[in-house]
């Protein structure tokens, strides 16, 4: 087990180096001069030269990359051209919002998708099964930006049930501890803030959760169907065990591995999908910040931010792989 983790950690190194090279090279995809792209057409030659000098754009590419990598290893991803703040500081400030949204969405997806999948598998070809699988099909095909807009229009604008954007209402006080607002409001016993935060998070989280929810429902169903057809499940039924015990203890435990794979994969999707969702719902997270930086061609933020997101993604995938051994002791890695 320890050897396996060590091996996976070593295998990740070339990937991380590659990821850093690709993140670094991204801004060099820009046709023409990156400095001019950042400052616009009206920039004077002196301003351009100053920016080039300060970003080190005059050096040969390998030299620039080595400097970028060396600084990144020391926790320095440069400064945003627009806000002048260190990229790492901005990420640290925006990340909790994205984490909160992603985790909330993932929780919805796992609970709703998982339960729908299990019930569908227990009663295959029933009305519930057909309906939930039909919904799942829509779920994987629906554009989340459209779903988001429709939710805003319906629940936010037309019926005024939920706030259409943002993370917390202006005027609601919340003492920040972890910057995960929901957690903070529970920790400080601030129920007014909790209610407000939940009202804000529900629409973006549902929009973001749609695709993972559908995927999880489909995988859970097919995986459960396979397990439920096995002999030991029939034995369990024959012994007269209560249904809930058979389904959750005997069957779901063994059907969980493919579901876990999908959850892991979907986490990456959520991080990407957060860009779109955060943009629509004006959610002040990493995704929106990165998107604004990308369109404004704030190159240090583009390089650093994308590198960070990719690192988080790689780490999550590694954790999922390691989790396998705990979930299914039959898996032995060598």
């Amino acid at each position, binding site marked *: 087990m320890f050897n396996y983790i060590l091996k996976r950690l070593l295998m990740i190194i*070339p*990937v991380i180096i*590659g*990821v850093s090279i*690709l993140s670094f090279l*991204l*801004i060099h*995809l*820009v*046709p023409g001069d990156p400095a001019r792209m950042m400052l616009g057409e009206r920039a004077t030659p002196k301003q351009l030269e100053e920016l080039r000098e300060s970003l080190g754009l005059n050096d040969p590419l390998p030299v620039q990359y080595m400097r970028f990598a060396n600084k990144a290893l020391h926790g320095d991803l440069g400064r945003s051209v627009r806000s002048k703040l260190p990229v790492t500081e901005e990420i640290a400030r925006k990340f909790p919002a994205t984490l909160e949204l992603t985790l909330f969405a993932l929780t919805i997806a796992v609970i709703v998708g998982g339960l729908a999948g299990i019930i569908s598998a227990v009663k295959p070809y029933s009305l519930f099964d057909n309906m939930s699988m039909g919904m799942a*099909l*829509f779920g*994987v*095909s*629906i*554009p989340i*930006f*459209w*779903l988001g*807009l*429709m939710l*805003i*229009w319906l629940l936010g*604008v037309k019926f005024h049930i939920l706030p259409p954007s943002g993370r917390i209402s202006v005027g609601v006080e919340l003492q920040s501890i972890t910057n995960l607002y929901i957690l903070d409001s529970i920790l400080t016993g601030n129920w007014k803030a909790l209610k407000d935060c939940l009202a804000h998070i529900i629409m973006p989280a549902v929009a973001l959760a749609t695709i993972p929810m559908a995927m999880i429902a489909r995988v859970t169903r097919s995986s459960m169907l396979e397990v439920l057809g096995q002999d030991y499940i029939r034995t369990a039924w024959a012994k007269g065990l209560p249904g809930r015990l058979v389904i959750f203890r005997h069957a779901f435990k063994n059907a969980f591995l493919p579901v876990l794979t999908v959850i892991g994969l979907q986490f*990456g*999707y959520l*991080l*990407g*999908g957060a*860009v*779109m969702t955060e*943009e629509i719902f004006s959610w002040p997270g990493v*995704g929106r910040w*990165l*998107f604004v930086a*990308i*369109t404004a*061609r704030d190159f240090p933020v*583009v390089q650093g931010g*994308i590198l960070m*997101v*990719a690192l988080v*993604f*790689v780490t999550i995938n590694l954790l999922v792989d390691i989790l396998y051994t705990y979930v299914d002791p039959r898996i032995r890695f060598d």
Partner: protein
Amino acid sequence: MTTPEVTAADKAADIVMEPVSKGPWVEGFRRLLRQKTAVLGLIIVCTLIITALLAPVLAPYDPLVPDLVNRLQPPSAEHPFGTDALGRDILSRVIYGSRISIQVGIIAVGISLLCGTLLGAISGYYGGKLDLVIMRLIDILMAFPYILLAIAITAMLGPGLTNAMIAIGIVGIPIYARVVRGAVLSVKEMEYIEAARVCGCSNFRILFKHVLPNCLAPLIVQATLGIGTAILDAAGLGFLGLGAQPPKPEWGIMLNKGKDVMQIAPWVIMFPGAAILLAVLGFNLLGDGLRDALDPRLKDS
């Protein structure tokens, strides 16, 4: 079926009656038509293609010419989907939008398919160090959440439909490379490949004449599903303002422009979004059906 009493003549009759000429593709197509959802997918996709081809005939109005007198008209007999903020007929724009979406789907998937197949085939067939290097490159590409990578590539290359297609094509490469590599790995151990090698075929010939044609089934399935994903992603990029640029009647950009007026004219965002949903759903249904029809492992399930 075969009993000891079967005579040589019976056997000959069996062989004659066996529809050998039909081949696995015809058989696969038949299996496809037996699935209701797949047929539905096929109908949606065919409708989409016909709409795209016949757009100038089907569209009641010009999709680009503004008609400021009839701004933001709700759906009516004259304008079944209503009109947008510039008075353009939304139905006509949705119809013309199918052209862009089909085009994006095919070109983006074409890029992924070409690069992915080549990389995957080389990787799987030659193995060794080449395999290791290519697969690590694929790993690196997969280490980025792919929507984010598509956004970054498009933004860096410069917003526009062509660059959006290139970006979606690039981020799609890994999946095809993996599918082809897996298929090549299993096919290349077959006896007929060995036979071809004994006959003195070159590696190139074996790969392109014998190995790849036998990897087609998973590729077709993946490409069908991929067109749906590409349409979705292109609309997403359009929505973010990075894909097709106004006044092009692209579904994503229609949503982008429509969101400013959706409070007073919700139909402006309803129909383009429904069009995206329907198109993607069609390709997904067809792709799922093709997988069940063409994948021998699932044949009897």
